């Protein structure tokens, strides 16, 4: 087990090294932030001074080594544009992103399971066709397009819901502002889950133990809810777990469309402004969260199932 843990930690470390290296190189090649920062009438000398003050005149590998040295101590540097520690800026936005991702997650799960069940139990009926039609649509629509359409319909045409921001601190305002982005972000996984629940349930419904249950005279409701669905949800739960990470990633676009003040929007803003330390630091911290979560899951698997740690 110890060897397994060490191996997994080393792998996680390598993943982090790869992520930071790639992001660093990409951002390094993306352009010169100093020009965007300097005032339009700054002289060449002033621009050069600014570059030197920011340490951007050094070779990339020195800057990278400097970044790594700081990162392992929890210091990701300061944002070039905001002058604040990158770590603080990212942490400030995590609650908003988690709130959005969690809401989208709940929306997706709460809707997708009944829809999948209805589709499977009423196979080839109008309900099934409608549900799967919407599921296909939900999976096909790009997030930004769906977001803009929802804003147009519910924000502009009906004027029911706000279209941007997180709202005022009161509960009602926060909830009203959350609805459209959560639906936008959760729709893709909702569609995916509904299809998965349907196919998984159909498969289970054809198994012998379900036939036995029916032969014993148990009501169809109990057959599905107590016997079939519980087993059909096993692969769904696995996928849903992975999806939560994808929701965090997908929040980048949704947050931009809905002006949601989370990590995704911070990242886009950092890239647009060529805020080199903020972009690299934000990606690193997000990647670190993923890697740590995955590491914990892997270690838990290893703990629970000996076959994993010996494979």
């Amino acid at each position, binding site marked *: 087990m110890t060897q397994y843990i060490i191996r997994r930690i080393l792998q996680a470390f390598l993943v982090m090294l790869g992520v930071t290296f790639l992001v660093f190189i990409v951002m390094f090649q993306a352009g010169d932030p100093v*020009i965007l920062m300097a005032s339009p009438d700054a002289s060449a000398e002033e621009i050069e001074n600014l570059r030197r*003050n920011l340490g951007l005149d050094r070779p990339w590998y020195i800057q990278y080594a400097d970044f790594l040295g700081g990162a392992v101590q929890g210091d990701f540097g300061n944002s070039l*544009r905001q002058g604040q520690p990158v770590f603080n800026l990212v942490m400030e936005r995590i609650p908003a992103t988690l709130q959005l991702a969690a809401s989208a997650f709940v929306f997706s799960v709460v809707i997708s399971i009944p829809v999948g069940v209805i589709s499977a139990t009423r196979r080839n009926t109008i309900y099934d066709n409608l549900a799967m039609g919407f599921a296909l649509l939900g999976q096909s629509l790009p997030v930004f397009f769906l977001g803009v359409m929802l804003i147009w319909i519910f924000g502009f045409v009906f004027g029911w819901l706000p279209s*941007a921001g997180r709202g005022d601190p009161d509960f009602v305002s926060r909830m009203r502002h959350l609805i459209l982005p959560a639906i936008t972000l959760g729709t893709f996984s909702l569609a995916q889950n509904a299809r998965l629940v349907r196919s998984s349930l159909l498969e289970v419904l054809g198994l012998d133990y379900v036939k036995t249950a029916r032969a014993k005279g148990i009501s169809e409701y109990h057959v599905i809810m107590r016997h079939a669905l519980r087993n059909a949800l096993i692969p769904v739960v696995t996928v849903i777990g992975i999806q939560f990470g994808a929701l965090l990633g997908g929040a980048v676009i949704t947050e*931009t469309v809905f002006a949601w003040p989370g990590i995704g929007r911070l990242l886009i803003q950092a890239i647009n402004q060529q805020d080199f330390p903020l972009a690299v630091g934000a990606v690193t911290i997000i990647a670190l969260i993923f890697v740590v979560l995955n590491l914990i899951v892997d270690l838990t698997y290893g703990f629970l199932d000996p076959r994993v740690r010996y494979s």
Partner: protein
Amino acid sequence: MENRRSVDALMNDVMRGGLSRRDLLKRAAVLGITGPTLAALIAACEDDDTDDSADDAVVDTDDDDEPAAEPDTDDEDPMETDDEEDDAEMEEEDDAEVEEDDDADDAPTESEGRLVLLQGVDSNTLDPLVRNSVPESVVNRHVFDMMTWRNPDTLEIEPLVVEDWTIVDDNTWEFKLVEGGQFHDGSPVNSAAAVHTVERSIQDTIGDSGRVHQFGPQNNVESAEEVDEYTFRINTTAPAPIMLDLMATFELCPIDPYPMDEENVDQPVGSGKYTFVEWVRDDHITLEANPDHWDGPPPIQEIVIRPVPEDSSRVIALQNEEAHIIVNVPPELVPQVEEADNARISDVEGGRSIFVGIRNDIEPFGDVRVRQALNYALDFDSISAALLEGFGEKMRTIVNPPNDHPDLEAYPFDPERARSLLEEAGVEEGTRVVMNAPRGRYIKDDEIAEVVAQQFRDVGFDIDLQILDWSLYAGELLPSGEPDALYFLGLGSPFDGQSEINYVNPDYSLNYTRWENEEYVELFATLRETLDPDERQDLMYRLQEIIQEECPWVFVWKQYDFYGAAANLEWEARADEAIVMTHARFTD
């Protein structure tokens, strides 16, 4: 009770003397006292034999009654013309005072309501000396008092917290601050704070921040010194004729919250009409009315500034009454806002010059006829009709009001003339030219560039248009100093004349044209050191004529700014991109 004490204090000051009429009227306006009431109060406080003069002091606008503290008008004074200008200013100020007095009945005694402004992006820093974008200055000009202020109608500089100024000599300006002002941390608005502000601004860096000069050595500012409690001087290494223009975008800061070597990113403390409440990054900035402002409280109690990057989201928020002012309404959404019952468009020709720079060192553009041909080839009306909902006009001159040459006309659209000029210059049909353009920085930048390129093709050029995202355009192409023969760009938005003319100065960092003209260089050097307004105007007019004739650019347009505003909000857009809400008010 507080108000009564303030009235008593005012009367005591009047009786003691030494209070200028301007100060008297301002303080009276703050207290909601109108001219006749004030006259009656003074009359009641004075002896009978002085009653008449007291009335005069209030209602008479004759300069003869001005306190004797004005600048010396000795004939031998080298700054005679400036003194004359001061006199003229005082006359104008007197007129303004009468208007202020008339308006005093409307001056709010308390603030109410909540105004939500949606901008495209959030601020990065609210430190006045490190800020580098319009959205940041929008926040700051409410929390801080700018030293001076640009009149939105005339675009002329007018007093604000700096209520008076004098040019002492070529390298010394003297400024007088309003009396009775207070920063939000309780410290007084005085010359010590002003000197600290200037000295902080002329450092190379502030802490670890990438310092962006706003008021430093590049503007010849060398040092500042206190003269008395409310008077300070700025010393320059060379004449600084645009000093007052610089002061219009220069925030007065208190001492303690703004250490010399430390950036104050997110806790702004000023003396402005609004106090800072909170900043939740990427979500909102909240400001609250300052009831103790020296010029009286603003009409609106609370301002919330939110960043919303999506244009359409901002428009929808305005129509849903979630916002009251929104920036950058795309031209195609202007009709939608105009049709709404609860919203309107406030549009203004801004000060940002959009142009196609011409590399004079790349053939055939060294020939002025070729450059003129490109200007004749540009049909802005069709661009306006197709892309800008009919808004905008072809650029007449690179200088913004109030210094623009009144007699200059834009190059007319004349493709025949363009072709004949190209023929005269020996330019062959199908000459290949690379043109660069950005995407995502200016209104419809890439689309306008596409049409412009086609119009150049129509007169015989083979234009290879290369469009880059703004980050690459500004981050790589321009810093290389080597854009291709034609490059699309926008610069703005100063209003002092000199800064606009500087755009084509060979030494200007964003001028890639390599255009050289001896007369321009000579006259521009003179302009930079000339303080006399009349001489400056003559020089600026002549320089504009040279630029128009020589056309180092293809003059496209002055970008229009479209704002959306709630129908029940009294507020108008300004040409200088400043969103000023200190005087906005709801009509219901």
